[in-house]
């Protein structure tokens, strides 16, 4: 819960508040020019209802554009109406129209309503798009889905691994699946997801550029996506999503972070529709696939030597030798 709240604060911060303020001020400045426009008579209740529906559809379209899921769309519509009514109230106060007329579209009010709707749409697009884009993203608390329908709560406490006594090998096959609960493969009917203590990090806004990986690496995490991804596709990923996770070694990306602009279209396949089933999936990238493409500057760290390294040598130090 704390993580979710922090996440919302990060997606709607001071820059977004400034943008929202600027949109409202710009809208307020347009009140008087709008009042000079020729008035239209919109006194029919049917027209009123239709306008409300059109307004809701507009908010829905904008919210869907950014969130690409139903939850985000509904939140977007709710936010749109809240901002629109707030803007409307401000406009009515500015031009001395009673607030009781807030829900009536007729006459001059219709144009002022339209102005408020434009303000709300701009606010959704400019101030709330980060918030909408993050609604429905998988959060830190993991859950394992199977079969795409039933949700099963995942035990966050790692279970003791069974001791397998086998001949030692210098090349180990990778992480044991019992360790972090993150290597549940789709072949076992469950999805790959980050470890229990994974804390999603937002993309860094000061990092530009992209790196390219083979789609086959994405298919390792989401094998079912082979219907919409050819393994030899080159997929561009924003460095801004990779850089904040560099100290972790393994990078975890949500599907939406990888395919911000949708999956590259395939011939004769409705990729946009099929992509929806993978929208909440996670993709794990081993550092071996990206470190050569990350500029060296992002690996620079300030290291402070510990005090014990600065102690003076003692007299017989040179005598320390282990040759037999």
């Amino acid at each position, binding site marked *: 819960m704390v993580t979710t709240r922090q996440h919302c604060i990060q997606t709607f911060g001071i820059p977004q508040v400034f943008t929202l303020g600027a949109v409202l001020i710009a809208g307020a400045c347009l009140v008087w020019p709008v009042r000079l426009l020729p008035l239209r008579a919109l006194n029919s209740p049917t027209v009123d209802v239709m306008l409300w529906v059109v307004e809701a559809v507009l908010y829905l379209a904008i919210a869907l554009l950014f969130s690409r899921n139903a939850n985000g769309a509904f939140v977007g519509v709710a936010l749109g109406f809240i901002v629109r009514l707030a803007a409307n109230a401000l406009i009515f106060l500015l031009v001395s129209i009673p607030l009781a007329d807030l829900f009536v579209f007729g006459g001059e009010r219709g144009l002022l309503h339209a102005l408020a709707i434009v303000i709300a749409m701009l606010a959704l697009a400019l101030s709330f798009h980060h918030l909408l884009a993050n609604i429905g993203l998988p959060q830190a608390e993991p859950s394992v889905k199977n079969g795409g329908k039933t949700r099963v709560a995942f035990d966050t406490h790692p279970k003791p691994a069974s001791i397998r006594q086998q001949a030692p090998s*210098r090349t180990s096959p990778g992480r044991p699946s019992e360790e972090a609960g993150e290597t549940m493969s789709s072949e076992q009917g469950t999805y790959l997801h980050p470890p229990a203590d994974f804390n999603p990090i937002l993309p860094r806004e000061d990092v530009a550029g992209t790196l390219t990986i083979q789609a086959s690496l994405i298919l390792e995490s989401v094998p079912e996506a082979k219907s919409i991804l050819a393994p030899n596709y080159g997929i561009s990923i924003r460095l801004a999503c990779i850089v904040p996770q*560099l100290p972790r070694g393994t990078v975890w990306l949500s599907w939406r972070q990888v395919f911000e602009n949708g999956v590259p279209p395939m011939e004769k396949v409705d990729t946009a529709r099929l992509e929806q089933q993978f929208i909440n999936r996670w993709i794990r990238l081993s550092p071996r696939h990206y470190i050569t493409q990350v500029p060296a500057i992002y*690996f620079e760290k300030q290291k402070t030597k510990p005090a014990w*390294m600065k102690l003076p040598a003692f007299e017989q130090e040179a005598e*320390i030798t*282990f040759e037999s």
Partner: protein
Amino acid sequence: MASINYATKEINCKLVYYGPGMCGKTTNLQIIHRQSSGGNYCGEMVSLATPGERTLYFDFLPMQLMEVRGFKVKFGLYTVPGQVLYNATRKLVLRGADGVVFVADSQWDLIQENIDSLQNLRDNLASYDIKLEDLPYVIQYNKRDLTDVAPVWYLDYLLNTSGVPAYGAIALEGAGVYETLSDLCRYVIRDVVNRFEAGTI
């Protein structure tokens, strides 16, 4: 913490080889023990392992080096079991350590295990109110002879956050094993001498 026996004029120090499972901690001790069979500074190695050569409790190798200011310096070399399951044992072995060798497995597939193990080392030391940076420690990047290994600069970026001495090693062949041990011994003795002079031992 090192113990000083004024009666026998001995300083006993404890060095712990820490790292993820199968990274080569026991191999380090075996190489030191095997190659010192002609010398007189190593005692018998005690090893409690499963038939699959996984350390079950710990390995122990006693060593005696030189005299410092009239005191014989003795080292007890310990390894911990690397498997996630045995954290209580790791914590117990770590108690009273004077120095740590963190043995990292250089293979790409085991990067995450190394990070987790280093964090586990920090956590276990923290339970004794010790910060890793306050304890002499060095890092050994083992298995450098394998083909699928991460570059040393990248392992350094991930694991060596304080710029402590780090060594590439091929423990099976003995490469890097002595360099790691001798440097840690130097730093531990410097630390012990410093604390002895400051009167904190």
